């Protein structure tokens, strides 16, 4: 089976070895954002292995990951699901006009007490 360029890019960009996954699901048992997500950490790993990247790229799940790394920390095989999620997210926002967060929308999202850290972090994650 030929490997798609997308899969190759995800593997390269994440530095994760999806073949090490033994499908235990501990990542998804640990994920604090599980209920917010359509696809869950273990599915990110599995879909990348099965080369179904498009599904992930188009899923709102990529914006629901908290980047907390708990899935990778507890992974018994050092696969690192969070690294995969981040690589897919990066691929999505690197598409032309695909910035998930746009500067013009920010004023409506900010309150007086919003810390700069929140804006900067969100921009880093959601915008190229």
């Amino acid at each position, binding site marked *: 089976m030929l490997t798609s360029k997308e899969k190759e890019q995800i593997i*390269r*960009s*994440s*530095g994760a070895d999806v073949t090490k996954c033994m499908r235990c699901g501990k990542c998804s048992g640990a994920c*604090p*954002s599980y209920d*917010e997500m359509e696809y869950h950490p273990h599915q990110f790993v599995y879909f990348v292995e099965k080369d179904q990247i498009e599904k992930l790229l188009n899923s709102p799940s990529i*914006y*629901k990951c*908290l*980047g*907390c*790394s*708990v899935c*990778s*920390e*507890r992974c018994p095989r050092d696969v690192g699901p*969070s*690294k995969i999620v*981040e*690589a897919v997210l*990066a691929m999505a926002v690197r598409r032309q006009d695909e910035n998930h*967060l746009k500067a013009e929308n920010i004023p409506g*999202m900010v309150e007086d*007490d*919003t*810390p*700069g*850290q*929140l*804006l*900067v*972090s*969100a*921009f*880093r*994650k959601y915008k190229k």
Partner: protein
Amino acid sequence: MTFSYYPGCTLKTKAKELDAYARRSAEALGITLAELPDWQCCGGVYNNTKDEIATKLSSVRALISAKEQGNKLVTLCSACHNVIKRTKNEIETNDDMAFRVSNYMQCDARKDSDTEVVHFFELLRDTVGFDELKKKVVNPLTGRKIAAYYGCLLLRPGKVLQFDNPENPKIMEDFIRALGATPVIYPMRNECCGGYIAIESSEAARKNSAAIYESAEGFGADCMITACPLCRYNLIKAESTVPVVYFTELLAEALGVK
């Protein structure tokens, strides 16, 4: 003893007290914090992708700047600490990253940014020592039950940050004991507050934060401490029934410099 100090953006605006109390406490402990003259924002979150270099450069500049001053680099905000320490690790362990950073910055990245990154908690534990700190406390916080909220950024990835056991940390509890208070151990202390998703999914972030303060309250905490402005913001937005303060505020109080 002098350390280079990286305050970070939020400590200059919405989290001024995190910074101010740290400076006063450091002085009381005989530590000089020399703010880096030319620091730039760390970016708030570490970009984990191996092919992303631009977002890591501000951290590299901070590392190089501290190295030039011949100091260890102290951080206070959990996010800054996470970003700078992971950037340093990436340069150390990823040849490609080291090459690209060196090329862009016209330096030898591995050598020039080989600066020890120390969080303020680590400084208290390893340089001051909690036993010494205890001796310097003038207003012991006796009887107060304080819950340490670690969050994610100080602990994970455990292998890179080497801060404490990511599943069962104790550094903040030891800190609380040194100040004369009683630490409250609760299972949510290393769970995520919701982080940056608060920008567009505030409900989801609040759900996460609520679970955290409810757990702390359930185990009898009358106060929570954190080192992260975003954690504090999310907890407060979730209407935490337990007051959330920066750890440096308690430190300053105990040292009598508040």
